[in-house]
């Protein structure tokens, strides 16, 4: 993974596989603390804490095509390379929170990359799921909540190409990180 936005996309897929109807994503920077925090919180089917711990091991996976599962371990490694760490907490039938801290100015911190591309793929491919996307750079913040868009759209799909284009424009105009 060359961009943290790709790790984020990969980790967010887990929430969708877990059947989440609401996924909250945050990309938060605090330069005073030299901290970047990326988290994904969902209301999917959750795991036992034992499974959550096992998921951080690359040789644990629930799929059957291969014996490795690299998504979470790669995300964890990206965080630890910068002096940060990853926390994965989960509860069956409640949901999962995965949160990673990075040293914002650490030389080994991967670039954020195309966060907007990650957001639009998630919405485009999962128009029935709601996403709350939060970006913060110190005191500047942007929030996109698809539940608010859905209210305006009155049944028109979030995956409608014009809606996706609107989201891209909204992002470009409001993101505190670009």
């Amino acid at each position, binding site marked *: *993974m*060359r961009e943290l936005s*790709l790790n984020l*996309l*990969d980790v967010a*897929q887990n929430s969708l*596989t877990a059947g989440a109807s609401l996924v909250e994503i945050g990309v938060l920077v605090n330069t005073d603390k030299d901290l970047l925090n990326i988290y994904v919180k969902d209301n999917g089917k959750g795991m036992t804490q034992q499974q959550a711990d096992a998921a951080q091991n690359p040789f644990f996976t629930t*799929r059957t*095509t*291969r014996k490795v*599962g*690299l*998504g979470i371990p*790669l995300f964890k490694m990206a965080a630890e390379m910068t002096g940060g760490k990853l926390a994965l907490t989960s509860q069956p039938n409640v949901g999962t929170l995965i949160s990673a801290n990075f040293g914002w100015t650490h030389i080994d911190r991967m670039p954020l990359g*195309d966060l907007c*591309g*990650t957001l*639009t*793929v998630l919405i*485009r*491919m999962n128009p029935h799921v709601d996403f709350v996307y939060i970006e913060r750079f110190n005191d500047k913040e942007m929030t996109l909540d698809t539940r608010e*868009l859905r209210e*305006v*759209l*009155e*049944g*028109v*799909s979030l995956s*409608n*190409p*014009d*809606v*996706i284009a*609107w989201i891209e*424009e*909204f992002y470009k*105009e*409001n993101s505190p990180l670009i």
Partner: protein
Amino acid sequence: MKSLEELKAIRDKAKSAINVREESDAGTRIVVGMATCGIAAGARPVLNAFAEEVNRRGLKDVMVTQTGCIGICQYEPVVEVYVPGQEKVTYVKMTREKVAEVITEHIVNGRPVTAYTIGAYQN
């Protein structure tokens, strides 16, 4: 500023469109592998490019969708194309640049782009 007023205009336009269709319609399916391997190899821009190209050309019976690990990670990004009544075609090592050609030749003209398929890479 992007406003909710603009979103309302998009809504009204979409509602008045004749071809309002749901995902379940049978038609051509373009399936992009989006597991860790696919994402790391560059599947995200490929998927977005397919969706944009399908929209740009106004293809109504084509659906772009995603799947997990197809099991051939070394060939990612992998894209499978299902045209009703025809055999599945598997494109490997896809890039954003190849997308327009696949759409034009395969989806529109019905001629799979053999050079980008898994058969071409294995030989």
